[in-house]
């Protein structure tokens, strides 16, 4: 399992894709972070905050908005990373190597999942430096920051699991990318139907929002964990079914 995860992780860096994504994301996040910090220290904003007794703190204002934005950017980028996970192996006929090796389907799927999650951890690590840099000028709420990171990890886990499953359905990475992209957007947009409680519950983003506020709600965590387990199991079944 870890052998597969390690290869997956390494192979990302063999192509320029991973470097490009890391670079682009760092620029985007750096820029948005700078804008947010600039907004926060503007005199009029500061004055408003000082007058409002229930004003949001530094962490909520900056980390909250930044992570909200990051989640959307990641949602746009993840399909490009998940698309090749299984479809490319199928296309290059390397899937036979994994299946004929003494490893179970579960290890193959988990290995792929963990490999990509490993890459996302690097992204998050680089990201974490930005809010942490605020420590130079003020206090940050580590509880809220932690909750936000937990939320982001779960969010990415859910995106990756779904992307992995869609990638296991096809032999064409592009098809996988577009389908994944569509499903992500749909899951995001489902939450826009404000009045329908079921759709609200199913929505991808709502569960993330409360974690951003620092609320660690078991419902939200269970939602993401169930989501991840569901799509990983579906991927395992999908690969098993291929032999039949």
């Amino acid at each position, binding site marked *: 399992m870890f*052998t597969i995860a390690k290869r997956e992780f390494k192979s990302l860096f063999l*192509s320029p894709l991973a470097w490009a994504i890391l670079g682009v994301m760092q620029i985007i996040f750096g820029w948005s972070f700078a804008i947010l910090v600039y907004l926060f220290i503007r005199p009029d904003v500061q004055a408003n905050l000082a007058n409002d007794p229930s004003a949001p703190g530094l962490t909520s204002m900056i980390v909250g908005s930044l992570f909200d934005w990051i989640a959307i950017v990641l949602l746009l980028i993840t399909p490009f990373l998940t698309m090749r996970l299984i479809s490319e192996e199928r296309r*290059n006929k*390397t899937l*036979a*190597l*994994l299946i*004929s090796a*003494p*490893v179970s389907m579960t290890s193959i799927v988990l290995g792929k999942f963990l490999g990509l999650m490993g890459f996302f951890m690097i992204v998050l690590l680089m990201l974490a430096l930005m809010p942490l840099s605020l420590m130079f000028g003020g206090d940050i709420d580590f509880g809220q920051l932690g909750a936000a990171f937990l939320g982001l990890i779960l969010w990415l886990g859910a995106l990756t699991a779904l992307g992995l499953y869609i990638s296991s359905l096809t032999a064409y990475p592009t098809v996988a990318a577009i389908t994944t992209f569509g499903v992500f957007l749909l899951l995001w947009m489902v939450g826009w139907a404000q009045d329908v409680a079921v759709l609200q519950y199913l929505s991808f983003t709502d569960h993330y929002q409360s974690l951003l506020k620092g609320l660690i709600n078991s419902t939200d965590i269970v939602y993401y964990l169930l989501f991840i387990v569901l799509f990983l199991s579906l991927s395992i079944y999908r690969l098993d079914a291929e032999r039949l």
Partner: protein
Amino acid sequence: MSSETLISVKNLSRYYGDFGAVQNISFDIKRGEILGFLGPNGAGKSTTMQMITGTLAPTTGQISVGGYDLLDHPLKAKAALGYLPEQPPLYRDMVVEEYLQFCAKLHHVPRLKVKDAVDRAIEQCGLNTVNKRLIGNLSKGYQQRVGIAQAIIHTPSIVILDEPTVGLDPIQIREIRELIRGLGEEHSVILSTHILPEVQAVCNNVQIINNGELILTDTIDGLFTQMQNNHLKIGLRRPPEIEILKQIEGVEGVELKDENNFYIQYSNDNNPAERLAEKAVAANWGLYELTPEQRSLEQIFVDLTTEL
């Protein structure tokens, strides 16, 4: 050669919808055997191999590898196998050495022995000159060798090679055959091919499959005896009546090829060649050719696969 059975296949069938790609095949493979798996395109060779390696589930039937049932203990059974599919499963963006390390780890070669295993496979497959190069940049022949290296890296007791010499040049083919023959000393090998001389060159057992059914299982020696199929070819400048030839002791049938050439079929253990020659000289038939006819493997193959 010990008689330990490494692969046993019982009543194996595989259907794609109504189409029976493989129908009710049974065979055993013992240690040290190099089995040539012959058949025309689409006969079910690859399907059978995929089922043995667990990449395809059989519709019915039982497969056990190294004493483990493939369904009940898939991981243990697969650990005894090395498999080179029709298209070598290579990651084109990896370096040869790195790829082989990955394969070794994938097959649970102990961490400390990975380096030895990789070095040995590189040595055996003659990859020394390319081990630091990207697989995607290698020629087809070298890629094929990397594929074979991948199949033998964990010293499996059985190596399964699906058409390993397709698309190679004659020199590479010869090298790869040499390699396969070497493998047969330590491992059992199943080799699928539709190139007949290849079987003659490397295998000690032959199976012919056609339309999903096994139509011949024999040793290569057995096949050679089949090839001596009791025919003589005789050339006479002044041939007599066919009836006269038929009366010679041992002759069972005479077939006219053209004016001067005849095929003579004779019964087992009673070769009339000597008598034919004596008679021909005595009667002044103008004997200029008398050769035992040998059916080639090709003919046997064609006979077997088309008579159905």
